[in-house]
């Protein structure tokens, strides 16, 4: 083992600990979140808040939030929020945006919220071309209620309501919601990101930025589906969440942009 000559000065106090990490948190976060260790949602939510700050639209941003673990995050988000019924966020957001077209209106939903209960609202809102930005936090399970199967649970995934793993004979197939939304004329920007690696985080942030920009440009509904880790609901160790997600979800839900105005112009 190589050694270096370090003289430790024991007579003066050490410098204060670095504050870099703390000051890097967006000022829109008011405190500590209470989500599980290894959960992907806090990262995704932070990216959204940073984006609103980067684009300078914080003072006209209104969120519409459904129900899921991310709901507890709302308490520390310094953003005006309507927390609505499970699945109904795009409909509520429609009412807000139509009356306040100058606002930046976003929705936050989990996969159980958007794809199970709220499938109708997301598809119709996209078809109507509502000028809102929808963020889907997709971890393939109902995390909040303890890990049951949702409409996006991948085949083979074990959940509390598909104990032997989801199989199509009994449970049907998962719904790729981003693809459905992208296929509708009223959507302007659709992408699928993840927060499982630093590279994916950086890419996802760019996607969120383009989605909100698409709303500012009036291109209709924008959707960013973000694959997030739920080690608790998946019953895997927290540290293995990212790898597990990469192996199980990403082959079914490929990361990338599905639709953008630039793609269409190209």
């Amino acid at each position, binding site marked *: 083992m190589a050694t270096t000559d370090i003289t430790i000065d024991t007579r003066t106090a050490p410098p204060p600990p670095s504050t870099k990490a703390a000051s890097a948190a967006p000022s829109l976060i008011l405190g500590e979140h209470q989500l599980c260790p290894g959960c992907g949602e806090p990262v995704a939510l932070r990216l959204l808040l940073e984006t609103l700050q980067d684009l300078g639209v914080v003072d006209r941003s209104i969120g519409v939030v459904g129900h899921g673990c991310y709901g507890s995050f709302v308490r520390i988000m310094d953003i005006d929020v309507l927390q609505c019924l499970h699945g109904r966020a795009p409909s509520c957001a429609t009412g807000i945006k139509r009356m306040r077209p100058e*606002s930046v209106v976003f929705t936050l939903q989990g996969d159980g919220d958007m794809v199970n209960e709220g499938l109708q609202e997301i598809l119709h809102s996209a078809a109507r071309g509502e000028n809102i930005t929808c963020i889907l936090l997709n971890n393939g399970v109902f995390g909040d209620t303890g890990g049951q199967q949702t409409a996006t649970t991948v085949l083979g995934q074990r959940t509390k309501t598909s104990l032997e793993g989801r199989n199509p004979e009994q449970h049907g197939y998962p719904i790729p919601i981003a693809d459905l939304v992208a296929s509708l004329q009223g959507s302007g920007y659709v992408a699928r990101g993840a927060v499982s690696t630093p590279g994916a985080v950086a890419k996802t942030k760019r996607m969120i930025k383009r989605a909100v920009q698409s709303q500012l440009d009036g291109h209709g509904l924008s959707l960013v589906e973000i694959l997030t880790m739920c080690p608790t609901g998946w019953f895997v160790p927290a540290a293995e969440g990212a790898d597990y997600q990469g192996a199980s979800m990403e082959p079914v839900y490929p990361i990338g942009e599905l639709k953008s105005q630039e793609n269409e112009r190209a």
Partner: protein
Amino acid sequence: MTLELLQGSVAITRAALAADCRFFAGYPMSPFTPLLEAMSREMAGAGGVCINAESEIEGANMALGASAAGFRSATGSCGQGIALMQETIAEAALNETPLVVFNMARNQQDYYQCTRGGGWGDYRTITLAPKDITEAVEHTQLLFHLADKYRAPVILYGDDLLSKTQVGVHVAPLDLPELPAKDWALDGSASGTGKSRQVWTFAMGKKNDPGPGPDGQWKRVAAKFAEIEPVEARHEGIHADDAETLVVAFGSAAKFAEYVVEELRGEGHRVGLFRPITLWPFPGAALARATRDVKRVLVFELNAGQMIDDVRQWAHDRDTIRFIGGVSIDEHGLAYGPLLDAPVIRERILAEHAEPAVVPAGRS
């Protein structure tokens, strides 16, 4: 004052616009459809938005969103569609968002639905039941006021007669007291200031401004409805002061009963009418007073007997109560059946009125 010949749905739409309603969303369903059509025709001209939603659930939630953003908003349907909206109506009650709901009902079988809810939680919906289009024009404006005043969902109990009949009507803006500014509404301007707002049923607030929490919020909401109950109950009595036979009826059925009561009075029968104008709060104390000296209370409603539960709760003597209504619907299932007919009502009232009153043992 010039009267304009208007279909009821158009008159109600004009009244809503006069009350500053600027957002409407609904899903077609007879006899609510003409109201949705009138709103879609007239809303844009008033600078508002009307959306033909893809379901009642979506329409109600769109209106909830527009209300949460601080605008006077409404939705509507009838019976089955209102059933789908009950989730949202309960949500609006518990998160304290004003929401006006037009139930252009097929008959009077939605009484429980409007007065007992069907969503979850300790809430009620202020429900006004106009007897005709002229009154519906007033009630519509009053409802927007009450919804804002109490930050609560409210219902107009209309029907196919109010929806489709044409009458000469004058839509005069009601002179109602000013209400405080909506400092709770979401406009985004508080985002990033440390004072951002939140609207939700659990009311747990933000980290730096903890709300009352579910227990505190739900108690507060329950207390609010308890306060509303005695002050917002409305009723009308016609020849009720000296009646031997008191008919209790609401909505269009009450208008028909009123005609019959006037006719019978003209012939010397001591018959009167008590009409609850608010179905909730039910004007119970007034009914108790009005039934103190009567020989019989005849409940006429076009259902199997729903309001009669409230009458039984409040009438001075339960044993005087008779039910003279019933389920009566046309063959399409959309409009009133043969019971809503003045000669039929007359016959049913007279059959009871002619009977000697049975004074139960023990009552002097």
